[in-house]
């Protein structure tokens, strides 16, 4: 079987298109590359959707934590503390079994026991909490002069937030936020190891990598392949965020722009 046929059979295996049975023996390098790569679809899906949706919630959390209203502040603080203070792994487990119990009471929760939605919700909350804390830190370090200048122009409330506070916050938070995005993509590998079932062996990249490692009892091929894919993904994330960073700081002289420092990979 040529490599192109393998790609045609297994390229979209992780979303259920193509050959149903996974290869059982005589694993070729091509099969490993294709299947692990096809698993990356899930990692990208989880990471991207959680990141984009989490961004808005994180902004809300940061504003809530910085607000003068005691109720909002406490709510945001507790939310951030709970999601940052406990391991993501345990959160996945808890959420899965929570959804299982809820499903028995209310059938609406049935899709939540599947990874594509249930794990996504957990990742969404988790990244919102982590980036919320980053944004909160940035909110606290907005130069006083910027706000004063906005006041002097007569801007208040929503206008001031939209034109001054929010862009400055993003500018300050962006390097840290880039790292958060990288962690998030790495964290997506936990999904299929934490209770959420890989239905019909539709799993993510690590799921397939460990499948191969189990079958061949040889970790030295699948895991480096996985690492290679993730390094590429990380580089893409860094360059996309780098472009956004240049866009955010394009009014500044070149030397004054803050470079994004690449600090990937800390387990949560």
């Amino acid at each position, binding site marked *: 079987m040529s490599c192109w046929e393998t790609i045609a059979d297994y390229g979209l295996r992780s979303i259920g298109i193509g050959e149903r049975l996974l290869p059982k*023996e005589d*694993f070729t390098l091509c099969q490993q590359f294709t299947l692990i790569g096809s698993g990356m679809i899930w990692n990208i899906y989880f990471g991207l959707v959680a990141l984009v949706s989490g961004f808005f919630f994180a902004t809300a959390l940061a504003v809530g934590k910085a607000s003068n209203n005691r109720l909002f502040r406490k709510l945001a603080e507790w939310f951030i*503390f*709970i999601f940052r*203070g*406990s*391991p*993501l*792994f*345990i*959160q996945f*487990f*808890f959420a899965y*079994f*929570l959804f*299982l*119990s809820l499903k028995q009471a209310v059938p609406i929760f049935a899709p939540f026991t599947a990874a594509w939605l249930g794990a996504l919700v957990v990742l969404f909350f988790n990244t919102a909490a982590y980036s919320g804390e980053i944004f909160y830190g940035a909110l606290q370090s907005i130069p006083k002069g910027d706000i004063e200048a906005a006041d002097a122009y007569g801007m208040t409330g929503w206008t001031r937030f939209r034109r001054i506070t929010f862009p400055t916050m993003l500018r300050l938070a962006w390097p840290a936020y880039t790292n958060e995005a990288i962690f998030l993509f*790495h*964290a997506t*590998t*936990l999904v299929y*190891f934490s*209770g959420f079932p890989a239905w019909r062996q539709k799993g993510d990249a*690590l799921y397939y*990598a*460990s499948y191969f*490692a189990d*079958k*061949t*009892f*040889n*970790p*030295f091929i699948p*895991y480096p392949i*996985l*690492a290679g894919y*993730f*390094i590429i993904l*990380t580089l893409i994330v860094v360059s996309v965020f780098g472009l956004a960073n240049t866009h955010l700081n394009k009014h500044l002289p070149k030397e004054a722009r803050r470079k994004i420092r690449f600090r*990937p*990979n*800390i*387990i*949560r």
Partner: protein
Amino acid sequence: MSFYVSFGTVLLLLAITAPTALAFGFAGAMSARARFAPLSWIGKGYIAIVRGVPDIAFFLFFVIALDQAIEWSRHKLMCRDWTDPIRQGNDFVVCAEAKMPLGTAAQWVHEVYGFSLAVITFAIVFGAFAANVLFGAMRAVPRAQMETAEAYGMTHRQAFWRILVPQMWVYALPGLSNLWMVLIKATPLLFLLGVEDIVYWAREMGGSKTARFTAYPHGDWRMWYFFALLVFYLAFTRVSEIVLDRLMKRLTHGQATSGGEAQRRANA
């Protein structure tokens, strides 16, 4: 009962891993700033490689890789007249004497062996993070301090141990305490390494039990077990935060940093 013992397992892991990882980190940082170039490449390579690879992939990889490395070298040493290749297709075959632990060993030996593999894996991964923190901290110690040491005629080694090492901790502590938090939150990953830890027992004991197999039949309680774990971790991180805060206050005392300066002014 085993459920409560497994909390002990987690604490034991932390108690062993933290100093081991710190030692790994110290060695890594020392070799990274060595003046002998190949040694410094080794140190820097160690830091870069471990930090660049996705987290749990590393855990899954290292446990099998270490196990195979040990068995492989024992095989080479002890069974010289064995001619069959070790990798036969999908199998990893070593002679009976080279099995680690021996096939005849007691159950607890297997458990201890598995646990120590986990500890080494954790130490290698977190050692790299710690090395990075310590490397930064060593560079953060003001250059003037080292110049003074040289002016007093101390050798390179003396200056390192007497001046640099005692002073670097205050710079290293924020990074290290961050790392400690991450380490706490990484402990549930023990489950993936095949150690019977709290996650394992929470799944086992929380599952529905019928009266036929146990004296305490109950429904699916896994949700509550994982909720308990969540609370345990939250409490643990909170307590660590408070303790580390105190430690930081103690360490900044009398240091030539803005924190130490603020303390001095507050007391004056």
